[in-house]
């Protein structure tokens, strides 16, 4: 009997499909105003996030993380990859706040990643962009250009941008218009621990989620957005 079971099927004959990917982009303000405690805590938050994802059996296989930073220049400092091939970056604060260009790079990069998934037949959940900034953008023209693109994608549920304002020197009115799905979160304490703990847990939730109905309003991404908005009261 055991012999029959052992020879029943060979593990190497099973399909080797990649785990459905959950693309996450951290779009981070590293302008001069972030210097000091803010950038220090941000660096620690990213380290904690990586460690938390690495310890989660579902998020570890699914999370596909990239980091875009913006000051006067915009940089893709971490391209998409799973957590196993990553080491947390150490960010340094300098120069101005090209928020619009940062968002544009994040959105374009998210779309390019989806194209790559499709080309390779990899299933994926819709991308999430976490925007963190502590100041007013110096490129409002670009912001006005990129927001309608974000809003259109969000309405089709092909993207969610989670705006996180740090400190009090913010353009609150602008932050409220970044996303049509997720409310603006404002962090006063410059402590990212709770935020990154939530983010890690959310990635795990998305990674574990199987099929849902096209007609349901409570699909996974909506649940994440709802939880986010509930946290903000």
């Amino acid at each position, binding site marked *: *009997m055991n012999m*029959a*079971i052992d020879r*029943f*099927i*060979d*593990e190497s*004959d*099973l*399909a*080797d*499909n*990649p785990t*459905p990917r959950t693309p996450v982009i951290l779009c981070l303000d590293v302008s001069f105003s972030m210097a000091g405690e803010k950038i220090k805590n941000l660096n620690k938050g990213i380290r904690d996030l990586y460690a938390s994802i690495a310890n989660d059996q*579902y998020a570890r296989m699914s999370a596909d993380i990239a980091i875009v930073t913006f000051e006067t220049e915009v940089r893709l400092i971490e391209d998409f990859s799973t957590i196993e091939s990553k080491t947390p970056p150490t960010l340094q604060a300098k120069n101005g706040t090209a928020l619009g260009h940062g968002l544009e790079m994040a959105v374009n990069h998210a779309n390019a990643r*989806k194209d790559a998934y499709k080309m*390779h*037949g*990899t*299933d*994926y*959940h*819709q991308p999430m962009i976490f925007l963190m900034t502590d100041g007013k953008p110096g490129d409002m023209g670009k912001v006005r250009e990129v927001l309608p693109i974000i809003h259109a994608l969000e309405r089709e*549920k*092909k993207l969610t941008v989670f705006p996180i304002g740090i400190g009090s020197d913010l353009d609150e009115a602008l932050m409220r218009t970044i996303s049509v799905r997720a409310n603006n979160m404002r962090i006063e304490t410059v402590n990212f621990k709770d935020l990154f703990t939530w983010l890690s847990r959310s990635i795990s939730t998305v990674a*574990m*989620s*199987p*099929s*849902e*109905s*096209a*007609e*349901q309003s*409570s*699909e*996974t*991404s909506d*649940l994440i957005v709802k939880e986010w908005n509930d946290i903000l009261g």
Partner: protein
Amino acid sequence: MVYWTAHASIVTGSAHLADGMPCQDAVRAHQSNGLSVIVSADGLSSCDNAHFGAEITTKVTMRYLIGAFDGIVRTNRQFRHELIGMIRSAHQAYAARQGIDILSLQSTLTFVAHDSHHHILGRIGDGVIGMYDANGVHVASMERKTEQIEMTDTVLSGNIDDVMDIRMGPMEGISGFVVMTDGTAHALVRRSDNTFSDAMVSLFKRLETMRREDYHAALDDAMKRLICKKTSDDCSIALTGIVQAPKPRELDCAARLYIRFFPQDTNRGTVIRKDMKRFMDALVFPASTDHIKRVSGISPDRIYRMILFFERIKWLVRDQGLHRLVMTERRD
């Protein structure tokens, strides 16, 4: 004459085990009087009562197909609205009894029903249906993935004409069917080109030669040990396939062995062999003496002795064929 068998297996996914949630898949297999029916359903993870919904969906579908199959293939009539109407009525009744929202019962559905001449298959949502023939296992019905992978259609989705795939056709050249939920498909279907993995061919080939009980145990083991390890989702599968028919030499051996067991049966070996072939051709599962008598024309006494014979050698003919009898006779 060919012999068909049907099997089903189900495993709770690691994500549901970790959360203490019930398995939200349901699966059923039926084989009787020449009709095989396999059904699977996957309850939606975001629905509180999806496990009940999946059970209701498979139960109603199975009952419907067993009763309606002959009429459907004889008249080639459309049946999707009738079937889905029955499923939705059952969901509605359950939701009313329990005081719950009917939308909390949502599930996908895949099914195949066939006799030796015709097959019908149907799918709503992200399950997969496969067909086995001389060239291998092919995808017969599968959802085309949209951008929203976390979304799928269900038996409660709006326009059933748009979301339900139904096919009917002849059985020529077909040796088996499989239905599976998306969890199982993650291990058995290559997403890059939507083809079945080699393991799926093995599952059908083993079906041809293994004893029913052994196959069932091995399938359960493979689901738990290998297939469900590929995903955190619940996994279920049901398949029908042809069991290897006895070869002429095996029938000769069986007839000789029968005479040794029942020396009081005065017919010659050639007559016994002929009756044994008739007996096996008429045999259905579960065995019915009346049915065998009517179909084969063998005397009731001999039918009784043949049933005793096969019980005595501990093999169910339709599962095992007779190929091991050769070895048994040599040992004698």
